[in-house]
């Protein structure tokens, strides 16, 4: 086993453990912490693939800004331990079916693909910030601007909703 492969499996395991722990933790803060673990190990995976810029942005935006807001809100509301209800009937049988279907789909596509895990590391192709900015601001400029417009509308909507009604 080569060193990158070992790192890959370690990070992947960490991400999966974090994701499972996110669901089974009882306290919201612990769930948020698990989510941070997932985000950071995903950033590690990007780094392994040679996408340095994406990795750094992943940590800054998701690990830093967004998760800090999550933690902040949980702390502000001082949310306590949650009661876990027994598994809902809707999620029971159809959920299991979906799990099996998804696992089958993923394993089938892995089995069909010819690329091995080692080739995932493509150093240098996506790392260049120049190429990413070229894609964002030239090739996909309209979808990108539309998305930012959408986010702006969402922010404005939230502000309007949060405003006190005029008496």
């Amino acid at each position: 086993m080569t060193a990158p492969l070992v790192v890959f499996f370690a990070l992947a395991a960490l991400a999966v453990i974090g994701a499972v722990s996110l669901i089974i933790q009882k306290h919201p803060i612990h769930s948020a912490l698990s989510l941070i673990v997932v985000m950071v190990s995903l950033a590690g995976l990007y780094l392994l693939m040679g996408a340095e810029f994406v990795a750094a942005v992943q940590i800054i935006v998701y690990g830093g800004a967004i998760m800090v807001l999550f933690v902040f809100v949980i702390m502000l509301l001082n949310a306590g331990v949650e009661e876990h209800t027994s598994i809902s009937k809707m999620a029971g049988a159809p959920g299991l079916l979906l799990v099996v279907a998804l696992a089958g789909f993923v394993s089938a596509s892995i089995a069909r693909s010819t690329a091995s895990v080692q080739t995932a590391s493509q150093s240098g192709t996506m790392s260049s910030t120049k190429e990413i900015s070229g894609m964002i601001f030239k090739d996909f400029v309209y979808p990108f601007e539309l998305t930012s417009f959408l986010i702006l509308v969402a922010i404005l909507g939230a502000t309007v909703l949060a405003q006190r009604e005029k008496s």
Partner: protein
Amino acid sequence: MNSFLAANAELLITIVKIVLLLFIVLTVNAYLTWFERKVVAHIQSRWGPHRVGPHGLLQPLADGVKFLFKEDPTPAGVDRFVYFLAPLLALSLALTSIALIPFGPDPIRLFGHDIYLGIAPPDVNIGILALFAITAMGVYGVALAGWSSNNKYSLFGGLRSSAQMVSYELALTMSVVGVLLMAGSFNLRDIINAQAHHPQWGIFGWNVWPQILGFFCFFVAAIAETNRVPFDLPEAEQELVGGFHTEYASFKFAMFFIAEYTSMITVSCLCTIMFFGGWLSPFPASWTFTHYLPSAILIPFGLWVIWDGIRYETIFGHVILPGVGTVIAALGAVFVFLPGVNEFIQGPFWLLSKILVFLFVYVWMRGTLPRFRYDQLMSFGWKLLLPVSIVNVILTSFAILAKMEWGGK
């Protein structure tokens, strides 16, 4: 054994560098507390620590021993895992960030390996971004400490700090965009080298002149990020007992303390690198006589330490201080007589001097400025710093565009 050494040389060098840097940073941290207490004391017409050792020089040692041997009670009702995780997170992230700082331009050639000063390899493409990523994660140490302590004052401290850090991180990141545009790279080495385009300009080639707005925003936001006066609301003693670290004692408290001082050092390094030319000399390149400046400072300082030390009757004063003075003076003499070594230390010398100046400014502000009120803090960050840093980005972009269009290039 030799083949093992040869095969893993890079790894071994990195481990040695990590151990060395850890030792240096922790020592500097300890003496930074001494420096801070001395400077603040003199600002307030006091003597500061002066009992333990000459000039209170052994005070950090005494403090360290005290931190190690104090009782370390865990308060009732804390969230144990998070309570222990928080100081660990704060300290490890603060120490990681300093690994990305390059401390000198040239590598040392040793056993056939180029050894660069600084732990990260010289070609880290995302240097500044990685630093911001680590800074962004640093919020958790403080926020989680406040939350897990099961104490309302701690919780307030944690809440304040996360709100403050989220607000000022925006301005911090936006304010360096101008510098990045001018350098065209995220690499800290490239950013420094971009300031050396005109070797004869010396101090006037640095980024601080065209980026004065960016520097203002960066410095203010950086102080807020490190929770220092006048932005130390998360640990405002008069309102919150001790803020987020109220419930921490002994070494866990020391870990927060070390983390804070380490991030002060990192921010000073960043200020120096981004805006003040890093390891570049402030003098024009043709003034080669300025290369003797390190010796001209070290030799008199070493002699003064010897003269000062022998007046004391304690062992530390009588023996160790003159010894240290001799070493300092000898270093200065070595730099005079070995031109190769002298050339090599020019970069680190200027970098460290500038870092020291910034650390002094930090302490100076602590001795001078009163604390902000919370609403002032928020409106200052959102209504002044952020717009100014955005204006700075726009101005810089237009200036670069104009230079590309009409400039000689």
